[in-house]
């Protein structure tokens, strides 16, 4: 498997990357970890005229908690998974990073790439939907913050303009009595999800669910939110009945297709099951458990 020829440019800083992108006429692709793009290029399913390597841009791989969580787009999955802030305060992100592809891929792959590639089978999109995150883009017209709900337009298609790069992901600070979890079912370790479910819940003082948000992996043209399921949970005690209703709602609003990862009907049912399990785990974490 040999990729077609292309030009290669190293972006020295964000402005340089934007300039290179803007002057490419839409024929360039941004190269970060390359773990999704390079396989496509080796199949010659993707044949970009040039690659703009942004991995040498300084300052895009930090993790800061500054009122909100700011994750540099270039942080590698392996570093994300091991990061102390992430592990202690955002275990759902650690859950997610830990199941992206395999450990070797995670040593290269970046969170920014996982989101910007906008593969509905990627894991971070659902988690970021559940976390109500936003994405920071920089382009020739400056910086803008894109709410995650507006980011994924279609398969492989995001709201990023042709001259924009994703530089940061922002996640709201976890509220008191909140917790989240990401669960993924895969055919074998390292595979894309058959189904993935990200759930974040906030409990009120009585232990009822004050708010829930749920993202689903690989059951639609993009990662999708299970809004009806979120609605079903609001104000409910997190008992089996409420979870079952949420699971059923999430299953109903998922849009899986039949493929080598199973029939659509099966995937819908797994959405139902994993939604309940993810909520259960999120509730446990909201109560201070693991």
């Amino acid at each position, binding site marked *: 498997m*040999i990729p077609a020829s*292309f030009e290669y440019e190293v972006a020295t800083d964000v402005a340089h990357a934007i300039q290179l992108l803007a002057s490419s006429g839409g024929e360039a692709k941004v190269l970060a970890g390359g773990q999704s793009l390079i*396989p496509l290029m*080796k199949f010659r399913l993707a044949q970009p005229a040039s*690659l703009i390597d942004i*991995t040498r841009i300084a300052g895009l791989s930090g993790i800061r908690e500054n009122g909100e969580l700011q994750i540099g787009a270039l942080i590698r999955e392996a570093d994300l998974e091991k990061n102390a802030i992430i592990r202690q305060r955002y275990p759902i992100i650690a859950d997610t990073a830990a199941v992206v592809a395999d450990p*070797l891929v995670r040593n290269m792959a970046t969170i920014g790439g996982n989101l910007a590639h906008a593969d509905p089978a990627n894991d971070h999109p659902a988690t970021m939907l559940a976390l109500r995150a936003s994405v920071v883009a920089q382009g020739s017209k400056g910086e803008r913050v894109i709410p995650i709900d507006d980011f994924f337009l279609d398969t492989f298609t995001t709201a990023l303009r042709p001259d924009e790069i994703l530089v940061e992901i922002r996640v709201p600070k976890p509220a008191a009595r909140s917790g989240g979890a990401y669960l993924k079912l895969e055919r074998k370790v390292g595979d894309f999800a058959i189904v993935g479910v990200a759930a974040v819940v906030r409990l009120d003082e009585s232990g009822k669910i004050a708010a829930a948000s749920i993202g689903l992996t690989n059951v639609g043209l993009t990662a999708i939110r299970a809004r009806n399921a979120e609605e079903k949970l609001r104000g409910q005690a997190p008992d089996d009945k409420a979870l079952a209703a949420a699971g059923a709602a999430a299953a109903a609003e998922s849009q899986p297709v039949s493929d080598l990862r199973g029939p659509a009907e099966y995937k819908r049912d797994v959405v139902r099951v994993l939604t309940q399990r993810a909520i259960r785990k999120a509730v446990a974490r909201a109560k201070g458990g693991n």
Partner: protein
Amino acid sequence: MAVETAPAKTTTGQKLHRIHVVVNGAAHDVDVEPRTLLVHFLRENLGMTGTHIGCDTTSCGACTVLLNGRAVKSCTLFAVQVDQASIATVEGLEKDGKLHPIQEGFHQEHGLQCGFCTPGMMMTAVGFLATNPAPTELQIREAISGNLCRCTGYVNIVKSIDYAARKLREPAEGKAPDVR
């Protein structure tokens, strides 16, 4: 010591890129075509054939090398991306005629059969043990879940890595057996 190798040709008109890369401690300055995969750079440009190609889809890990100490799949990496970086391959494991504990482990615990996945497995293990010197069996299994082996059923690979972990933790007791 810098080793100069002949510039790679490109017949497709692509600009060549001069990269500086340290492989197993030796510096190389080489002109490469942007699309040259790291695994081909190592095997073809540098003649280091210990790193293998098994799948082309980032699935099997036969091509695993260490990039600045981290295990990565060299078939999913362009050589231009490793400019200024340090690469470690299987050829660099043995130092001064002494086997690396991971090599010893694979031999002692029968962790290899056809040997094709072995270099990638060992490099993954070396990268992993640097971050987790005292792993459990499950952690070892997770760590090698990006490396496929068709011969061994993994049981003895897990034992081999555990052998190396123990050996690396107790360097004083170590004495490399002769396998020549």
